């Protein structure tokens, strides 16, 4: 068991972080904390991909010292996926922050339950 844990430390950390982020995004009332949760969740996936993509003893996939043997380098695709994922996550964070600012200006609170209650009140008025 200990061997399994120590040999898969990054993956386990990634899964625990994913769980934390997921729970925060789903259950937290505060919108800013929801956004934090979303970022932790995404980062956990990048950690997982990077950890899985790295092979000990190999170099980054940039031609070094004229070595052309592919087995000396790691696969660049997982890193590429992480970069793409970061771009996606940045844009969705930006969108969510913009929405949060709009809601805060209108309702003066970040608590989503309170916002929903205010909204229900507005709904009942004609």
């Amino acid at each position: 068991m200990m061997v399994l844990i120590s040999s898969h430390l990054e993956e386990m950390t990634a899964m625990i972080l994913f769980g934390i982020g997921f729970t925060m995004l789903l259950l937290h009332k505060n919108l800013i904390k929801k956004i934090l949760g979303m970022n932790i969740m995404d980062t956990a996936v990048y950690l997982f991909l990077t950890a899985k993509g790295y092979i000990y003893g190999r170099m980054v996939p940039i031609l070094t010292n004229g070595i052309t043997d592919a087995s000396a380098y790691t696969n660049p695709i997982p890193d590429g996926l992480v970069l793409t994922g970061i771009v996606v996550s940045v844009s969705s964070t930006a969108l969510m922050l913009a929405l949060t600012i709009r809601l805060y200006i209108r309702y003066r609170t970040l608590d989503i339950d309170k916002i929903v209650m205010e909204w229900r009140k507005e709904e009942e008025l004609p």
Partner: protein
Amino acid sequence: MSFIVNFPFFSIILAMFSGIISSALNGKWAKRICILMLGIVLGLSACVLYYTVETGTQFTYMMGHFPAPWGNEIRAGVLEGFMATFFTLIMILSVLSGLGRIFSDVEPTKVNLFFVLVDMMMSSLLAMIYTNDLFTGYVFVEINTIATCGMIMIRQNGHGILAAIRYFVMSQIGSGLFLIGISLLYDITGQLLMVPAREEVEHIISTGAYMTPFLLVIGLISIGLGIKSGLYPFHSWIPDTYGYATPAASAILSSLVSKGYIILLIKIFYRVIGFKNLFQTHILDILFVFGIIAMIMGSIDAIRQRDARRMIACSSVAQIGYIYMGIGLGTEAGMVASLFHILTHAATKAMLFLSVASLYEAVEGKTDYDSLRGVGYRNKLAGFTFLVGSLSMVGFPMLSGFVSKAFFASAALESSTKMYFTWAALVISTTLNATYFLRMVVNIYALPQEGESVRGHYFLEERSPYTKTNGFVSIALIGLNLFLGMFSNHVVDLLMKGLSMF
């Protein structure tokens, strides 16, 4: 002939570039470019469909200069061509009929942004349909989410923004699960393209190694995309989002966006996981159970609504349930029924949302049940469209809803354990559907009450300026519905052919 191979790529990139160009133009030009683009994409998709049906082949299109296991690919077969054509058609009709409302609902300086969102959504939908690469699928799922979010909040009021944020949170949860699912799959197979990944999956199954991660992958991908398409326990955002957006956006959201995710899910099921392997894992049974609960609970929610648009939105939850139930049956026939229901629902829901928007205009924007009394006489065309749409959803013969229900019922025959549940759910859900849709139909064709002016009940003093294009679109959608209902055998032939190519 071989030139047609480029068309899927052209249509995706055309939609994307028209979005980029429109962001620098004013509303009028953005509208023209958007409609022109949709027209061209419709033509291109129809060519792809014609080509794949005529030659009976599928083709993959290499993106960039790296061949199969490394590069990125687009794949088109009969099913992809057909879905792309159909989705573009519904998109054109929704945009055309909501045009007037778009210009009145959205701030004048931001009208072009609405069309940018439509362009982006079209490009992401096409990419989700055509892609042969899992990670490209994920990226376009996210683009679609952001475009959807923009469409929900483009009416700048508190409701829209709150609905958008609730949608976005749910959607991000779905994307997160989908992304980790893909990462795990990439981890155990080492492939992102669907065809090589499929070979690796067969290898995994035959050796029996990594079975637990594999099961987890299927679960995560199904639940992730299920959440994004609004499957039952995760549907809380649907009534708000569809209920408050501008009519064109509601029609697009309910008939296309959630369906795009389902198409991607079906594609992953067939082309990566393999339907036989999937059947052994019992994930399908979970989808089946959620689907059945959705069919009943969605309809019960809809009965409780007083606002017609929220009622139609809740009915969408039930219809998504039908689709997942069909997938959950785990048979070829069930899958065909689900695909047919995707078409039915897209055609019918667009019709219902658009006609309800026109009905609201005839009662000066009031939305509750009582104000809509007798409005079917005042705006006859919208009333008739609503009538046809309701009958189709309830399952009136000759209309598409009837055919898809018949397909579901006969598909259930092949599965002895799920048969009775399916039939019971179909009966209950149809009864509930009939309750709320026909109640609304009776309400909009109610006779004048005592003390009410008869002329005011039957005729509208001023015609709203938006009913002009609405006529053409209504007739087109009714025609589409009748076509799906009466010539269902041709459509099903195409779907079967498409599925067999997967």
